[in-house]
Protein backbone atom coordinates (compact mmCIF):
# COMPACT_ATOMS: atom_id res chain seq x y z
CA UNK A 1 0.00 0.00 0.00
CA UNK A 2 1.24 3.46 -0.83
CA UNK A 3 1.95 5.68 2.16
CA UNK A 4 -0.22 8.77 1.83
CA UNK A 5 0.52 10.08 5.35
CA UNK A 6 -3.05 9.44 6.51
CA UNK A 7 -5.60 6.63 6.68
CA UNK A 8 -9.35 6.46 6.11
CA UNK A 9 -11.10 7.54 9.33
CA UNK A 10 -13.70 5.17 10.68
CA UNK A 11 -17.26 6.50 10.51
CA UNK A 12 -18.71 7.48 13.89
CA UNK A 13 -22.28 6.76 12.91
CA UNK A 14 -24.30 4.96 15.61
CA UNK A 15 -25.91 2.17 13.66
CA UNK A 16 -28.84 1.10 15.81
CA UNK A 17 -29.82 -1.54 13.26
CA UNK A 18 -26.44 -3.25 13.47
CA UNK A 19 -25.82 -2.72 17.21
CA UNK A 20 -27.08 -5.18 19.79
CA UNK A 21 -29.15 -3.57 22.54
CA UNK A 22 -30.06 -6.82 24.26
CA UNK A 23 -27.86 -6.09 27.32
CA UNK A 24 -29.54 -2.70 27.82
CA UNK A 25 -32.95 -4.29 27.39
CA UNK A 26 -32.06 -6.99 29.96
CA UNK A 27 -31.02 -4.33 32.48
CA UNK A 28 -34.10 -2.17 31.86
CA UNK A 29 -36.35 -5.17 32.27
CA UNK A 30 -34.94 -5.99 35.71
CA UNK A 31 -34.16 -2.44 36.84
CA UNK A 32 -36.71 -0.04 35.25
CA UNK A 33 -35.01 3.03 36.78
CA UNK A 34 -32.24 2.47 34.18
CA UNK A 35 -34.57 4.10 31.64
CA UNK A 36 -34.87 7.43 33.50
CA UNK A 37 -31.15 8.28 33.54
CA UNK A 38 -30.55 11.74 32.04
CA UNK A 39 -26.80 11.21 31.68
CA UNK A 40 -25.99 14.17 33.93
CA UNK A 41 -22.76 12.55 35.13
CA UNK A 42 -23.24 12.96 38.90
CA UNK A 43 -22.46 9.25 39.27
CA UNK A 44 -19.15 9.66 37.47
CA UNK A 45 -18.30 12.80 39.43
CA UNK A 46 -18.64 11.09 42.77
CA UNK A 47 -17.12 7.77 41.71
CA UNK A 48 -13.95 6.75 43.57
CA UNK A 49 -12.98 4.28 40.86
CA UNK A 50 -13.47 6.99 38.25
CA UNK A 51 -11.08 9.17 40.20
CA UNK A 52 -8.23 6.72 39.76
CA UNK A 53 -9.09 4.94 36.50
CA UNK A 54 -10.72 5.62 33.13
CA UNK A 55 -14.02 4.18 34.50
CA UNK A 56 -17.12 6.34 33.92
CA UNK A 57 -20.57 4.98 34.73
CA UNK A 58 -22.22 7.74 32.72
CA UNK A 59 -20.23 6.81 29.63
CA UNK A 60 -20.95 3.12 30.11
CA UNK A 61 -24.70 3.73 30.40
CA UNK A 62 -24.63 5.68 27.14
CA UNK A 63 -22.72 2.91 25.38
CA UNK A 64 -25.11 0.28 26.77
CA UNK A 65 -28.11 2.18 25.43
CA UNK A 66 -26.46 2.55 22.05
CA UNK A 67 -25.69 -1.16 21.98
CA UNK A 68 -21.93 -0.55 21.79
CA UNK A 69 -21.17 -3.15 24.42
CA UNK A 70 -17.50 -3.88 23.92
CA UNK A 71 -16.18 -0.99 26.04
CA UNK A 72 -18.75 -1.75 28.76
CA UNK A 73 -17.69 -5.40 28.98
CA UNK A 74 -14.04 -4.40 29.35
CA UNK A 75 -14.71 -1.82 32.08
CA UNK A 76 -17.77 -2.87 34.06
CA UNK A 77 -15.64 -5.05 36.37
CA UNK A 78 -13.83 -1.98 37.75
CA UNK A 79 -16.83 -0.83 39.85
CA UNK A 80 -16.40 -1.52 43.59
CA UNK A 81 -20.17 -1.42 44.20
CA UNK A 82 -19.73 1.15 46.97
CA UNK A 83 -23.05 2.82 46.05
CA UNK A 84 -22.04 6.49 46.36
CA UNK A 85 -23.49 7.05 42.89
CA UNK A 86 -26.95 5.98 44.11
CA UNK A 87 -26.83 8.64 46.82
CA UNK A 88 -26.12 11.49 44.38
CA UNK A 89 -28.35 10.42 41.47
CA UNK A 90 -31.04 13.12 40.96
CA UNK A 91 -33.27 10.64 39.13
CA UNK A 92 -33.10 7.89 41.70
CA UNK A 93 -31.48 5.35 39.40
CA UNK A 94 -30.33 2.26 41.25
CA UNK A 95 -26.94 2.46 39.59
CA UNK A 96 -25.41 -0.32 41.68
CA UNK A 97 -28.09 -2.67 40.44
CA UNK A 98 -27.45 -1.47 36.88
CA UNK A 99 -23.80 -2.47 37.23
CA UNK A 100 -24.70 -5.79 38.84
CA UNK A 101 -27.23 -6.58 36.13
CA UNK A 102 -24.78 -5.61 33.39
CA UNK A 103 -22.20 -8.02 34.82
CA UNK A 104 -24.87 -10.68 35.10
CA UNK A 105 -25.94 -10.15 31.51
CA UNK A 106 -22.38 -10.45 30.25
CA UNK A 107 -21.81 -13.58 32.37
CA UNK A 108 -25.05 -15.14 31.16
CA UNK A 109 -24.07 -14.21 27.64
CA UNK A 110 -27.44 -12.58 27.07
CA UNK A 111 -27.87 -12.92 23.33
CA UNK A 112 -24.57 -11.41 22.25
CA UNK A 113 -22.12 -11.12 25.18
CA UNK A 114 -20.07 -9.10 22.70
Amino acid at each position, binding site marked *: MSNFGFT*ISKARIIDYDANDRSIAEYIAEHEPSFRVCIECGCCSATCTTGNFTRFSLRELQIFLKRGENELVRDNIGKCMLCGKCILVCPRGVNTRNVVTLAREAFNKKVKNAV
Partner: protein
Amino acid sequence: MKIEGKRAIWSEYQKEIADDRYFYVRSCIRQNFFPGSEVAFLRIMREELGKDVYEHPCHTTCSGIGYHGDVVPVETAMTVVARQFALMTEAGYKNYVPSCITSFGLYTEILETWHHFPEVEGKVRKQLKKATGREFEIPENLAHASDVIYKFRKEIGAKAKYKLVNKNTGEPLKVVDHIGCHYSKMFPLKGVGGAEYPYVLAGMIEEWGGQVIDYPERRHCCGFGFRQYLVQANRGFSIACSKQKFESMQPYKPDMIITNCPGCPMFLDRWQYVINEMEGKTYGCNGEGIPVFTYEEVAGLVLGYDPWDLGLQMHQIDCEPLLEKIGYEYDPEKKYEINGTVTKINSHSLLNI
Protein backbone atom coordinates in the same frame (compact mmCIF):
# COMPACT_ATOMS: atom_id res chain seq x y z
CA MET B 1 -52.73 14.70 -5.84
CA LYS B 2 -52.89 18.49 -5.83
CA ILE B 3 -50.51 19.39 -8.65
CA GLU B 4 -51.20 23.11 -8.38
CA GLY B 5 -50.14 23.16 -4.74
CA LYS B 6 -46.95 21.31 -5.61
CA ARG B 7 -46.23 23.78 -8.40
CA ALA B 8 -46.75 26.69 -6.03
CA ILE B 9 -44.33 25.18 -3.51
CA TRP B 10 -41.80 24.31 -6.21
CA SER B 11 -41.89 27.89 -7.52
CA GLU B 12 -40.44 28.98 -4.19
CA TYR B 13 -37.39 26.84 -4.91
CA GLN B 14 -36.55 28.63 -8.16
CA LYS B 15 -34.15 31.50 -8.60
CA GLU B 16 -33.76 34.31 -11.07
CA ILE B 17 -30.97 33.77 -13.58
CA ALA B 18 -29.97 36.53 -15.99
CA ASP B 19 -30.44 36.05 -19.75
CA ASP B 20 -27.31 37.63 -21.18
CA ARG B 21 -24.32 39.92 -20.55
CA TYR B 22 -22.45 37.99 -17.91
CA PHE B 23 -19.37 39.06 -15.98
CA TYR B 24 -17.62 35.71 -15.61
CA VAL B 25 -15.02 35.08 -12.91
CA ARG B 26 -12.89 31.97 -12.88
CA SER B 27 -12.02 29.73 -9.96
CA CYS B 28 -8.54 29.62 -8.40
CA ILE B 29 -8.28 25.87 -8.23
CA ARG B 30 -10.38 24.60 -11.13
CA GLN B 31 -7.79 25.74 -13.64
CA ASN B 32 -5.31 23.38 -12.03
CA PHE B 33 -7.72 20.51 -11.42
CA PHE B 34 -9.79 20.41 -14.62
CA PRO B 35 -8.59 23.24 -16.87
CA GLY B 36 -10.87 22.30 -19.78
CA SER B 37 -14.10 23.02 -17.91
CA GLU B 38 -14.03 26.80 -17.84
CA VAL B 39 -12.83 26.96 -21.44
CA ALA B 40 -15.75 24.70 -22.37
CA PHE B 41 -18.18 26.98 -20.52
CA LEU B 42 -16.97 30.02 -22.45
CA ARG B 43 -17.11 28.12 -25.75
CA ILE B 44 -20.66 26.92 -25.09
CA MET B 45 -21.86 30.35 -23.99
CA ARG B 46 -20.22 32.29 -26.82
CA GLU B 47 -20.25 29.88 -29.76
CA GLU B 48 -23.32 27.71 -29.09
CA LEU B 49 -25.62 30.16 -27.30
CA GLY B 50 -24.27 33.47 -28.66
CA LYS B 51 -24.15 35.14 -25.25
CA ASP B 52 -22.00 38.04 -24.14
CA VAL B 53 -19.60 36.77 -21.50
CA TYR B 54 -16.86 39.08 -20.28
CA GLU B 55 -13.70 38.09 -18.41
CA HIS B 56 -11.61 40.75 -16.71
CA PRO B 57 -7.82 40.19 -16.78
CA CYS B 58 -7.41 41.86 -13.36
CA HIS B 59 -9.71 39.44 -11.56
CA THR B 60 -8.07 37.71 -8.59
CA THR B 61 -9.07 35.07 -6.08
CA CYS B 62 -12.21 35.89 -4.09
CA SER B 63 -10.21 34.70 -1.05
CA GLY B 64 -12.99 32.23 -0.17
CA ILE B 65 -10.56 29.34 0.02
CA GLY B 66 -8.54 31.24 2.61
CA TYR B 67 -11.69 32.37 4.42
CA HIS B 68 -13.02 28.83 4.74
CA GLY B 69 -9.51 27.61 5.54
CA ASP B 70 -9.42 30.01 8.50
CA VAL B 71 -6.51 32.12 7.28
CA VAL B 72 -8.35 35.13 5.79
CA PRO B 73 -10.63 37.22 8.04
CA VAL B 74 -14.08 38.06 6.70
CA GLU B 75 -13.37 41.83 6.53
CA THR B 76 -10.46 41.14 4.18
CA ALA B 77 -12.58 38.77 2.11
CA MET B 78 -15.28 41.45 1.83
CA THR B 79 -12.83 44.06 0.54
CA VAL B 80 -11.38 41.62 -2.01
CA VAL B 81 -14.93 40.81 -3.16
CA ALA B 82 -15.76 44.51 -3.32
CA ARG B 83 -12.82 44.92 -5.70
CA GLN B 84 -14.22 42.18 -7.96
CA PHE B 85 -17.56 43.99 -8.00
CA ALA B 86 -15.69 47.20 -8.87
CA LEU B 87 -14.11 45.45 -11.88
CA MET B 88 -17.61 44.39 -12.99
CA THR B 89 -18.93 47.92 -12.55
CA GLU B 90 -16.02 49.42 -14.52
CA ALA B 91 -16.60 46.93 -17.35
CA GLY B 92 -20.28 47.92 -17.49
CA TYR B 93 -21.78 44.58 -16.50
CA LYS B 94 -24.43 43.80 -13.87
CA ASN B 95 -24.81 40.04 -13.95
CA TYR B 96 -22.10 38.33 -11.93
CA VAL B 97 -21.32 34.68 -12.71
CA PRO B 98 -18.67 32.92 -10.62
CA SER B 99 -17.30 29.60 -11.80
CA CYS B 100 -16.57 28.42 -8.27
CA ILE B 101 -19.16 27.21 -5.77
CA THR B 102 -17.26 28.53 -2.78
CA SER B 103 -16.97 31.91 -4.48
CA PHE B 104 -20.72 31.81 -5.11
CA GLY B 105 -21.30 30.97 -1.44
CA LEU B 106 -18.97 33.72 -0.28
CA TYR B 107 -20.54 36.32 -2.60
CA THR B 108 -24.00 35.31 -1.37
CA GLU B 109 -22.88 35.45 2.26
CA ILE B 110 -21.34 38.89 1.81
CA LEU B 111 -24.33 40.32 -0.08
CA GLU B 112 -26.66 38.99 2.63
CA THR B 113 -24.42 40.49 5.32
CA TRP B 114 -24.42 43.87 3.59
CA HIS B 115 -28.19 43.67 3.16
CA HIS B 116 -28.72 43.21 6.89
CA PHE B 117 -25.79 45.38 8.06
CA PRO B 118 -25.45 48.35 5.67
CA GLU B 119 -22.85 49.92 7.96
CA VAL B 120 -20.50 47.01 7.16
CA GLU B 121 -20.96 47.66 3.45
CA GLY B 122 -20.20 51.34 4.04
CA LYS B 123 -17.01 50.42 5.88
CA VAL B 124 -15.92 48.12 3.05
CA ARG B 125 -16.65 50.83 0.46
CA LYS B 126 -14.39 53.19 2.40
CA GLN B 127 -11.64 50.58 2.71
CA LEU B 128 -11.76 49.81 -1.02
CA LYS B 129 -11.70 53.47 -1.98
CA LYS B 130 -8.77 54.12 0.33
CA ALA B 131 -6.79 51.08 -0.85
CA THR B 132 -7.48 51.13 -4.60
CA GLY B 133 -9.47 54.26 -5.43
CA ARG B 134 -12.27 52.05 -6.83
CA GLU B 135 -16.03 52.17 -6.33
CA PHE B 136 -18.56 49.46 -7.02
CA GLU B 137 -22.21 48.62 -7.54
CA ILE B 138 -23.94 45.56 -6.14
CA PRO B 139 -24.62 43.00 -8.93
CA GLU B 140 -28.22 42.95 -10.12
CA ASN B 141 -28.06 39.22 -10.58
CA LEU B 142 -25.76 36.67 -8.98
CA ALA B 143 -25.88 33.21 -10.48
CA HIS B 144 -23.42 30.35 -10.43
CA ALA B 145 -22.16 29.18 -13.83
CA SER B 146 -24.08 25.90 -13.36
CA ASP B 147 -27.27 27.97 -12.94
CA VAL B 148 -26.59 29.52 -16.33
CA ILE B 149 -26.04 26.14 -18.00
CA TYR B 150 -29.18 24.90 -16.20
CA LYS B 151 -31.12 27.84 -17.63
CA PHE B 152 -29.99 26.98 -21.17
CA ARG B 153 -30.12 23.18 -20.73
CA LYS B 154 -32.94 22.85 -23.27
CA GLU B 155 -31.08 24.88 -25.89
CA ILE B 156 -27.99 22.71 -25.30
CA GLY B 157 -30.21 19.60 -25.43
CA ALA B 158 -31.65 20.76 -28.77
CA LYS B 159 -28.14 20.92 -30.25
CA ALA B 160 -27.06 17.61 -28.69
CA LYS B 161 -25.02 15.23 -30.82
CA TYR B 162 -25.01 12.61 -28.09
CA LYS B 163 -27.46 11.79 -25.32
CA LEU B 164 -26.68 10.31 -21.92
CA VAL B 165 -27.96 6.96 -23.12
CA ASN B 166 -26.29 3.57 -23.28
CA LYS B 167 -25.87 2.94 -27.00
CA ASN B 168 -25.99 -0.83 -26.65
CA THR B 169 -29.04 -1.17 -24.42
CA GLY B 170 -30.89 2.04 -25.25
CA GLU B 171 -31.31 2.63 -21.50
CA PRO B 172 -30.62 6.04 -19.98
CA LEU B 173 -27.29 6.27 -18.15
CA LYS B 174 -27.59 6.19 -14.37
CA VAL B 175 -26.11 9.47 -13.21
CA VAL B 176 -25.24 10.61 -9.70
CA ASP B 177 -25.51 14.36 -9.24
CA HIS B 178 -23.43 15.99 -6.55
CA ILE B 179 -24.04 19.61 -5.58
CA GLY B 180 -21.29 21.62 -3.87
CA CYS B 181 -22.16 22.37 -0.24
CA HIS B 182 -21.64 26.12 -0.64
CA TYR B 183 -24.15 26.24 -3.50
CA SER B 184 -27.35 25.99 -1.49
CA LYS B 185 -26.67 24.54 1.94
CA MET B 186 -25.75 27.93 3.40
CA PHE B 187 -28.46 29.95 1.63
CA PRO B 188 -31.05 27.47 0.31
CA LEU B 189 -33.14 30.16 -1.40
CA LYS B 190 -30.20 31.09 -3.62
CA GLY B 191 -29.98 27.70 -5.30
CA VAL B 192 -32.30 25.94 -7.76
CA GLY B 193 -34.22 23.44 -5.66
CA GLY B 194 -32.72 24.66 -2.40
CA ALA B 195 -30.82 22.37 -0.08
CA GLU B 196 -33.59 19.76 0.12
CA TYR B 197 -34.37 19.21 -3.58
CA PRO B 198 -31.22 20.19 -5.48
CA TYR B 199 -32.26 20.30 -9.12
CA VAL B 200 -29.59 22.32 -10.89
CA LEU B 201 -27.68 19.24 -12.08
CA ALA B 202 -30.64 16.86 -12.05
CA GLY B 203 -32.38 19.18 -14.55
CA MET B 204 -29.40 18.93 -16.92
CA ILE B 205 -29.22 15.14 -16.57
CA GLU B 206 -32.92 14.67 -17.30
CA GLU B 207 -32.84 17.08 -20.23
CA TRP B 208 -29.83 15.36 -21.78
CA GLY B 209 -31.29 11.86 -21.56
CA GLY B 210 -29.85 10.45 -18.32
CA GLN B 211 -31.54 9.05 -15.25
CA VAL B 212 -30.87 10.69 -11.88
CA ILE B 213 -30.03 8.35 -9.02
CA ASP B 214 -31.50 9.28 -5.65
CA TYR B 215 -29.32 7.44 -3.14
CA PRO B 216 -29.22 7.78 0.67
CA GLU B 217 -26.09 9.96 0.94
CA ARG B 218 -26.96 12.17 -2.03
CA ARG B 219 -26.63 15.38 -0.01
CA HIS B 220 -23.49 14.35 1.89
CA CYS B 221 -20.37 16.49 1.47
CA CYS B 222 -17.71 15.17 -0.95
CA GLY B 223 -15.16 15.45 1.83
CA PHE B 224 -13.13 18.45 0.64
CA GLY B 225 -14.16 20.58 3.61
CA PHE B 226 -11.07 22.83 3.35
CA ARG B 227 -9.62 22.31 6.83
CA GLN B 228 -10.11 18.56 6.54
CA TYR B 229 -8.00 18.44 3.46
CA LEU B 230 -5.51 21.26 3.90
CA VAL B 231 -3.93 19.60 6.95
CA GLN B 232 -2.48 16.28 5.85
CA ALA B 233 -3.19 14.51 9.15
CA ASN B 234 -6.90 15.35 8.79
CA ARG B 235 -7.29 13.92 5.32
CA GLY B 236 -8.63 10.68 6.80
CA PHE B 237 -11.87 12.55 7.54
CA SER B 238 -11.99 13.89 4.00
CA ILE B 239 -11.59 10.50 2.37
CA ALA B 240 -14.05 8.93 4.86
CA CYS B 241 -16.77 11.30 3.59
CA SER B 242 -16.15 10.34 -0.03
CA LYS B 243 -16.04 6.66 0.90
CA GLN B 244 -19.40 6.94 2.62
CA LYS B 245 -20.89 8.41 -0.53
CA PHE B 246 -19.36 5.75 -2.80
CA GLU B 247 -20.63 2.93 -0.60
CA SER B 248 -24.08 4.50 -0.55
CA MET B 249 -24.27 4.95 -4.35
CA GLN B 250 -22.59 1.68 -5.35
CA PRO B 251 -25.72 -0.54 -5.09
CA TYR B 252 -27.43 1.66 -7.70
CA LYS B 253 -24.61 0.93 -10.19
CA PRO B 254 -24.05 4.51 -11.38
CA ASP B 255 -22.44 5.03 -14.79
CA MET B 256 -21.07 8.46 -13.92
CA ILE B 257 -21.00 11.29 -11.39
CA ILE B 258 -21.63 14.93 -12.34
CA THR B 259 -20.67 17.81 -10.06
CA ASN B 260 -20.85 21.62 -10.03
CA CYS B 261 -18.07 22.52 -7.57
CA PRO B 262 -14.30 22.82 -8.09
CA GLY B 263 -13.42 20.55 -5.16
CA CYS B 264 -16.04 17.82 -5.54
CA PRO B 265 -14.94 16.34 -8.90
CA MET B 266 -11.33 16.50 -7.73
CA PHE B 267 -11.96 14.57 -4.54
CA LEU B 268 -14.61 12.17 -5.82
CA ASP B 269 -12.20 11.39 -8.65
CA ARG B 270 -8.85 11.19 -6.83
CA TRP B 271 -10.13 9.56 -3.66
CA GLN B 272 -11.37 6.58 -5.69
CA TYR B 273 -7.75 5.99 -6.65
CA VAL B 274 -6.54 6.44 -3.06
CA ILE B 275 -9.21 4.10 -1.64
CA ASN B 276 -8.18 1.56 -4.25
CA GLU B 277 -4.53 1.91 -3.23
CA MET B 278 -5.35 1.65 0.49
CA GLU B 279 -8.09 -0.98 0.54
CA GLY B 280 -8.18 -2.42 -2.98
CA LYS B 281 -11.82 -1.37 -3.42
CA THR B 282 -13.46 0.00 -6.55
CA TYR B 283 -17.04 1.18 -6.82
CA GLY B 284 -17.85 1.01 -10.53
CA CYS B 285 -18.80 -1.97 -12.68
CA ASN B 286 -16.16 -4.51 -13.79
CA GLY B 287 -13.66 -3.42 -11.14
CA GLU B 288 -13.35 0.08 -12.57
CA GLY B 289 -13.92 3.43 -10.89
CA ILE B 290 -16.98 5.61 -11.46
CA PRO B 291 -16.00 8.43 -13.85
CA VAL B 292 -16.53 11.91 -12.41
CA PHE B 293 -17.25 14.96 -14.56
CA THR B 294 -17.96 18.63 -14.20
CA TYR B 295 -21.25 19.89 -15.69
CA GLU B 296 -19.34 21.82 -18.39
CA GLU B 297 -17.55 18.63 -19.45
CA VAL B 298 -20.87 16.79 -19.68
CA ALA B 299 -22.41 19.67 -21.64
CA GLY B 300 -19.36 19.58 -23.93
CA LEU B 301 -19.73 15.83 -24.41
CA VAL B 302 -23.42 16.22 -25.20
CA LEU B 303 -22.51 18.84 -27.81
CA GLY B 304 -19.94 16.46 -29.31
CA TYR B 305 -16.72 18.27 -28.37
CA ASP B 306 -13.41 16.41 -28.51
CA PRO B 307 -13.01 14.82 -25.04
CA TRP B 308 -9.33 15.76 -24.97
CA ASP B 309 -10.20 19.42 -25.66
CA LEU B 310 -12.50 19.17 -22.63
CA GLY B 311 -9.54 17.99 -20.56
CA LEU B 312 -10.89 14.53 -19.76
CA GLN B 313 -7.31 13.20 -19.82
CA MET B 314 -6.82 15.07 -16.52
CA HIS B 315 -9.15 12.70 -14.68
CA GLN B 316 -7.81 9.90 -12.51
CA ILE B 317 -10.72 7.61 -13.44
CA ASP B 318 -10.59 6.92 -17.15
CA CYS B 319 -13.49 8.33 -19.13
CA GLU B 320 -13.10 5.93 -22.07
CA PRO B 321 -15.50 3.20 -20.77
CA LEU B 322 -18.24 5.83 -20.49
CA LEU B 323 -17.48 7.23 -23.93
CA GLU B 324 -17.78 3.69 -25.31
CA LYS B 325 -21.16 3.31 -23.59
CA ILE B 326 -22.45 6.51 -25.20
CA GLY B 327 -20.96 5.46 -28.53
CA TYR B 328 -18.78 8.55 -28.68
CA GLU B 329 -16.54 9.06 -31.71
CA TYR B 330 -13.08 10.14 -30.59
CA ASP B 331 -9.42 9.40 -31.18
CA PRO B 332 -7.89 7.51 -28.19
CA GLU B 333 -4.41 8.13 -29.57
CA LYS B 334 -4.72 11.87 -29.01
CA LYS B 335 -5.29 11.54 -25.27
CA TYR B 336 -1.90 12.91 -24.27
CA GLU B 337 -1.20 14.96 -27.39
CA ILE B 338 -0.06 18.53 -26.78
CA ASN B 339 0.53 20.65 -29.87
CA GLY B 340 0.86 17.55 -32.01
CA THR B 341 3.34 15.81 -29.67
CA VAL B 342 2.29 12.83 -27.60
CA THR B 343 3.36 13.17 -23.96
CA LYS B 344 3.16 10.03 -21.83
CA ILE B 345 2.67 10.68 -18.14
CA ASN B 346 4.26 8.21 -15.77
CA SER B 347 1.94 7.82 -12.78
CA HIS B 348 4.77 6.58 -10.53
CA SER B 349 6.83 9.68 -11.15
CA LEU B 350 3.79 11.78 -10.27
CA LEU B 351 3.39 9.96 -6.97
CA ASN B 352 7.01 10.46 -6.03
CA ILE B 353 7.00 14.23 -6.47
